[in-house]
């Protein structure tokens, strides 16, 4: 039963999803839309698993003093703080005791982890955590300038949530992305060497496409530049199209075969045992 039911479920829903494609009738669409919604909702529940894993791995690293373990506090505090921003809202203009609360709540978190990690001094850490916890509770009870808002769907309008998004997430995200400009250069330097026919073709095609900029040719521009830009367009239109097609047809077959193997229960390595 432990192994059969999952395989049956996979086969049942997989086959349904295949056949609904051929049935345009409303009733099949209806089930289809339901199933899609379901997968999304289950996915959200899985988030909890993800967060738990992130927390556990971070604490584990602190515990075992892995390389760069200290930074895991930062991960956990960042996680906690951002979640806090996502679930709180300001009631008025003033900040009140919002930030002191945030700091003490983060301290509680850090001290609790310390207590669970360190063998000695557990009492001290727990005691301190308790003090800050009391401070947090006091602030929650007496401070009315902000509140936990489980009462509106406006959670993402929170000012601090946006500020963190704009000034932490976006800069790092965009900079990580822009590192590609550097890596594309170092990769080209390292790999584009005429070692054999294949590498030479790779190199030549890349060079032709990169040479479609004019200023390279000086007085020869009118003779060479149009040719280069036309060749690079042709490369993108013709051989590229052919290669893409060959790959897509192959990938299509691979996908169909893999999906069939999964649905028919031939490949069940992913479903576990025991």
């Amino acid at each position, binding site marked *: 039963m432990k192994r059969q039911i999952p395989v049956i479920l996979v086969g049942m829903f997989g086959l349904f999803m295949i056949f609904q494609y051929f049935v345009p009738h409303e009733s099949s669409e209806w089930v289809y839309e339901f199933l899609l919604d379901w997968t999304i909702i289950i996915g959200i529940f899985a988030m909890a698993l993800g967060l738990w894993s992130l927390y556990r791995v971070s604490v584990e690293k602190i515990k075992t003093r892995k390389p760069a373990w200290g930074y895991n506090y930062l991960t956990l505090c960042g996680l906690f703080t951002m979640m806090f921003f996502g679930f709180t809202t300001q009631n008025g203009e003033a900040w009140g005791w919002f930030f002191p609360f945030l700091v003490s709540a983060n301290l509680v978190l850090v001290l609790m982890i310390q207590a669970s990690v360190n063998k000695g001094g557990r009492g001290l850490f727990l005691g301190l955590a308790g003090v800050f916890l009391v401070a947090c509770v006091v602030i929650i009870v007496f401070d009315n300038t902000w509140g936990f808002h489980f009462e509106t769907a406006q959670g993402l309008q929170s000012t601090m949530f946006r500020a963190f998004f704009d000034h932490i997430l976006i800069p790092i995200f965009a900079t990580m992305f822009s590192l590609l400009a*550097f890596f594309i*250069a170092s990769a*080209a*330097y*390292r790999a584009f060497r*005429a070692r054999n026919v294949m590498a030479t073709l790779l190199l030549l095609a890349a*060079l032709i496409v990169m040479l479609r*900029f*004019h200023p390279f040719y000086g007085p020869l521009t009118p003779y060479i530049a149009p040719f280069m830009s036309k060749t690079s*367009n042709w490369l993108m239109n013709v051989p590229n199209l052919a290669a893409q097609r060959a790959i897509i047809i192959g990938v299509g077959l691979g996908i169909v075969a893999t999906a069939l193997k999964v649905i028919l229960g031939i490949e069940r390595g992913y479903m576990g045992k025991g």
Partner: protein
Amino acid sequence: MGKVNLTLLLAAVAIVIIIAIALIFPLERLGQLYSLLLIFGGLVALLLRSIFAKEVDRRIIFLFIFVAVAAPLLFPITFSEKPTAVVKAVFDRVESLPPGSTVLLSFDFDPAMAPEVQPMANAISRHCLKKGHKVIFMSLWATGQALLTQSLTNTILPEFPEKQDGIDYVNIGYKAGNEGVLNVIVSNFEKMFPTDVNSVPLGEIEIFDDIRSCRDLDFIVSFGGGLPGSKEWVLFVGDPGGVDVAAGVAAVVAPQLYPYYPAQLVGILGGVKGAAEYEFSLKETYPDLKDMDTPGLKMMGPQTLAHIVIISFIVIGNIIYFRGRRKEKGQ
């Protein structure tokens, strides 16, 4: 400190000097000269070094890329962007139409595409107004309307204070319906756009006195290249209506449009490069536009230098490889 670290330190000092120059003296020429010297001098040095089959540390490559991108931003280095035939065709068409012709410019793009497409849209709008054409602005994308308004109010109209809404240009905004919109306006504008964005009925707008449908237009340029985009303008308006259409699209889309050139498309502007070429021609033809904003040309400085750097490093890499192989053989 290793050899690499020392080189890097020296290079970092050089960069700091560049920034200092930019901060202290407003001497653009000096900065340009200095940074170009730095890049090309460095490349030549590495080229010579490569003859001894010595590998280059990746961090030195990174440094070159950084300088190649940063320097032209600090001291605008622009290269001559002689327009290619496809761009020239668009420019010449706008240039050769008699003043007072009616041109439709459709802003069919979203914020994601805007960095690539907006510069060329601005350049062509500027050109049309400069030449004295009547311009109809519109958008097939809901997100395009905001960008269109932004272009008009921030960039284009302040440069042409004498142009009047409704007489010299009109913004009829966005209508939902994708190709459906094109299907209708190829035979009748008013059906799809009863009013312009300011709710003035089309009948009261002077431009539309003798323009009933797209067939009466002299030229159409579609900016974007998504769906619906230039291809749809060709298939639904250009071909059936017998109007000349040109396209200004993101770089990735441009190759897909080439099969339509020159039979169905007058010309194509692809990506920032297309915009830069257009801006270059514009500046060349109208010396009084010397001080206009040229985001395309500005973007091309870093692009060109970075491409030169990457290509040089590919060449250096190959020299190292072949020299190294010979060395091995020699042993």
